[in-house]
């Protein structure tokens, strides 16, 4: 392990130990060296003193060349263990006598004697000294000491030093291990705390501050940081909780909204259904009312002719009254039907281009008897070069007819004038029809409800002048349908001016339809235009049926696209927009009923007639879901050919005149038409017991 990566505790101890160890070693070594040097000094002084004594003692023997005496003197050195050898030299430098310690090995002596004084030679201390007698040199003395004392002293010192270092080191270890906790303790505690915080993510933990030193301040800082984080964490938690609560609330809200939306949608569908039911009821009702009326008018006309031939004039008049009442009733029924159709957005426009002037003149001519009935004068002012307009001529006629008959009705001995001119406004050409009368006029309050259905200016008016009050309402709606408008200016007793503005070129877009019906209805002409009138989509999971149908229909000149499943059929229907779809019922996954449902629910596909071709005998289910025809397998090919040809004719006529098509779909979509016809058929099947097979 790297030294630097040691724990603080160890580092601290190591530093302490090294520092104290170094101090002990250095100081002890200094002392030791000093002691050993001074000891050597004193040793050499000692030896010098010995040499002086021995020289003094042997001086006489030297002077008298008494060798034995000198040897005795030297032998006295035996008491001294450290002196290894001693030599006395003559003045000439020759060895006079010598001494060697008994325990020492014999050795050679330096000859002649060297410089006076002491020196260290190897592990020996040597001294040369002159031997003098009365100030006269007589010889030289050599002493050699083996420094035994110094060595043993040095050894002792070394032992003491070592044990001292060891003991002091041991104590230093104990002390430092105790004291390092002062520093490492708080740091380790801080580390523990940090580890705990990061492990538990709990910011409530605080590190304990032990001392006021830097670490203490560090811990303070750490605690401050923690509490700050804790605050933020708490705030974050609060925010998070709030967010969750809000999210839950929002989710609840969304669920609530969705429920509401669903309820609204259901309500809307219910309303639309109700509206459709109303329209259907009105249409059926008017049909049912017309049938007996047909008989009433027809028979009374017949009777009138017969009685006329028989010459019974009174009866003729009565019969004419019946006829008149019948025809009035018929016109009322027609008005109600028209209005219901407009309301349901099913009133279409049959646009054609026509000359305006002849139309007006023709109309005034037919109305002239009625116009002059109350002794009124009629004036027609047609602007020059009125030219042509493109509109639904029947509806333009009916608007003008309503306005003119009202004018006649409410004017007596007055003037009725018709003004027609052409103008342009905001880049669009308009035709303005104005019907002015000098009749009874209408007041402001009556004006407000004038174009509302079933409201006449006054209840008394109905009694006096008759009428349903639907004429103006229908006219108003017709004008709106053609993107035009009707306005009225009138003062009671001052007559009225009705002005109709119609675009010179009416476009096929239906303005009278409510958004609901628009959404529900088939979009304007375009999908029909794109329809492949020679393509038939065969949806059947049985490959034999697909093959047979394809062969048969191809022979008839149609292009056949076959689908083996409901899903594929739906996809292909969108892709090719076929003339007719033949649809099997029993198929895996998505059965024929489901396919039919989806086809009829898609505004782009709803208009495609669907012929059910199946073994399932449930015709009413088929028609309920919007099928055009129902065929039981095995297929009657002739009937299938007839049915397809019928649809081809219907739809090709639609394509030929897009406007008429747009109008026609609203009057009687293929689905509704087929449904109606077939419902009649089924009803009669039961009666005649001759079902289609």
């Amino acid at each position, binding site marked *: 392990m790297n030294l630097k990566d040691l724990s603080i505790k160890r580092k601290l101890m190591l530093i302490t130990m090294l520092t104290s160890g170094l101090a002990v070693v250095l100081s002890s070594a200094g002392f030791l060296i000093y002691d050993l040097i001074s000891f050597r000094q004193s040793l050499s002084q000692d030896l010098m003193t010995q040499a002086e004594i021995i020289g003094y003692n042997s001086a006489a023997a030297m002077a008298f060349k008494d060798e034995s005496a000198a040897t005795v003197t030297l032998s006295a050195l035996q008491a001294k263990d450290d002196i290894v050898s001693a030599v006395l030299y003559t003045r000439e430098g020759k060895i006079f006598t010598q001494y060697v310690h008994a325990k020492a090995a014999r050795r050679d002596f330096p000859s002649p004697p060297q410089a006076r004084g002491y020196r260290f030679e190897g592990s020996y201390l040597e001294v040369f000294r002159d031997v003098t007698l009365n100030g006269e040199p007589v010889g030289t003395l050599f002493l050699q000491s083996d420094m035994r004392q110094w060595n043993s002293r040095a050894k002792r010192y070394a032992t003491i030093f070592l044990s001292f270092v060891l003991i002091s080191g041991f104590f230093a270890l104990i002390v430092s291990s105790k004291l390092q906790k002062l520093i490492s303790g708080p740091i380790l505690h801080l580390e523990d705390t940090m580890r705990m915080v990061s492990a538990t993510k709990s910011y409530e933990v605080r590190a304990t501050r032990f001392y006021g030193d830097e670490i203490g301040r560090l811990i303070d800082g750490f605690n401050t940081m923690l509490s700050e984080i804790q605050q933020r964490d708490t705030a974050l938690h609060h925010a998070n909780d709030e967010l969750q609560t809000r999210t839950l609330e929002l989710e609840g809200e969304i669920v609530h909204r969705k429920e509401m939306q669903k309820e609204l949608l259901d309500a809307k569908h219910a309303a639309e259904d109700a509206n459709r039911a109303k329209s259907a009821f009105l249409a059926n009702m008017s049909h049912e009312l017309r049938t007996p009326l047909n008989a009433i008018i027809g028979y009374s006309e017949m009777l009138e002719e017969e009685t006329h031939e028989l010459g019974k004039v009174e009866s003729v008049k009565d019969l004419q009254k019946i006829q008149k009442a019948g025809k009035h009733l018929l016109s009322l029924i*027609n008005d109600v039907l028209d209005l219901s159709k407009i309301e349901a957005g099913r009133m279409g426009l049959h646009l054609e281009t026509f000359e305006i002037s002849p139309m007006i003149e023709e109309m005034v001519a037919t109305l002239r008897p009625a116009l002059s009935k109350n002794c009124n004068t009629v004036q027609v002012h047609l602007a020059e070069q009125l030219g042509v307009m493109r509109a639904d001529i029947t509806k333009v006629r009916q608007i003008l007819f309503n306005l003119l008959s009202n004018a006649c009705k409410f004017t007596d001995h007055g003037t009725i004038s018709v003004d027609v001119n052409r103008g342009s406004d905001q880049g669009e050409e308009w035709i303005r029809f104005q019907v002015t009368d000098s009749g009874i006029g209408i007041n402001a309050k009556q004006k407000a409800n004038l174009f509302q259905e079933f409201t006449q200016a006054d209840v008394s008016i109905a009694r006096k002048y008759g009428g349903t009050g639907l004429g103006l309402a229908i006219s108003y709606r017709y004008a709106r349908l053609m993107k035009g408008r009707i306005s009225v200016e009138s003062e009671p007793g001052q007559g009225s001016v009705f002005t109709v503005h119609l675009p010179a070129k009416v476009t096929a877009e239906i303005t009278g339809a409510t958004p609901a019906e628009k959404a529900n209805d088939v979009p304007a002409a375009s999908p029909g235009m794109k329809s492949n009138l020679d393509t038939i989509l065969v949806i059947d999971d049985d490959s034999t049926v697909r093959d047979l149908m394809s062969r048969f229909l191809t022979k008839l000149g149609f292009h056949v696209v076959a689908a083996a499943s409901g899903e594929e059929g739906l996809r292909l229907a969108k892709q090719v927009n076929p003339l007719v779809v033949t649809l099997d019922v029993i198929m895996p996954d998505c059965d024929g009923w489901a396919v039919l449902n989806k086809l009829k629910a898609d505004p782009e596909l709803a208009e495609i007639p669907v012929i059910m071709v199946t073994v399932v005998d449930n015709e009413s289910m088929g028609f309920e879901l919007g099928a055009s025809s129902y065929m039981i397998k095995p297929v009657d090919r002739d009937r299938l050919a007839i049915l397809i040809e019928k649809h081809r004719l219907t739809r090709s006529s639609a394509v030929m005149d897009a406007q008429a098509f747009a109008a026609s779909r609203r009057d009687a979509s293929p689905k509704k038409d087929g449904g109606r016809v077939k419902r009649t058929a089924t009803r009669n099947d039961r009666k005649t017991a001759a079902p*289609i097979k």
Partner: protein
Amino acid sequence: MPKILLIEDNEMNMDMLSRRLERKGYCVVTAHDGEEGHLMAHSESPDIILMDISLPVMDGWEVTRLLKANEATRHIPIIALTAHALVTDRAKAFEVGCDDYDTKPVEFGRLSEKIENLLLVRKSS
């Protein structure tokens, strides 16, 4: 005496219309549904056919289409009669091959004019 085939499922309308036509001097044969009408157009060889559109078994459009597709009956003029004065019915009537078209309740004067016209056209051709 021109022979008229009246195909109509409503008894009262049929009675009324046939009697009035007879009074006008036509010979009237009647059929109650599309299939019967179709058969009678072949068997009776009428000079003109008055065809109601909402018919049981086979509707007026289908009968008209069949008759107009057949060489033997193609020449017989057909006047379609519908209960609703719808733009589509009118367009459809001419598309499937009707020679004329009128709405119910019929205005007898107008209808007899149309019959006369078609008979004249046929006679002249």
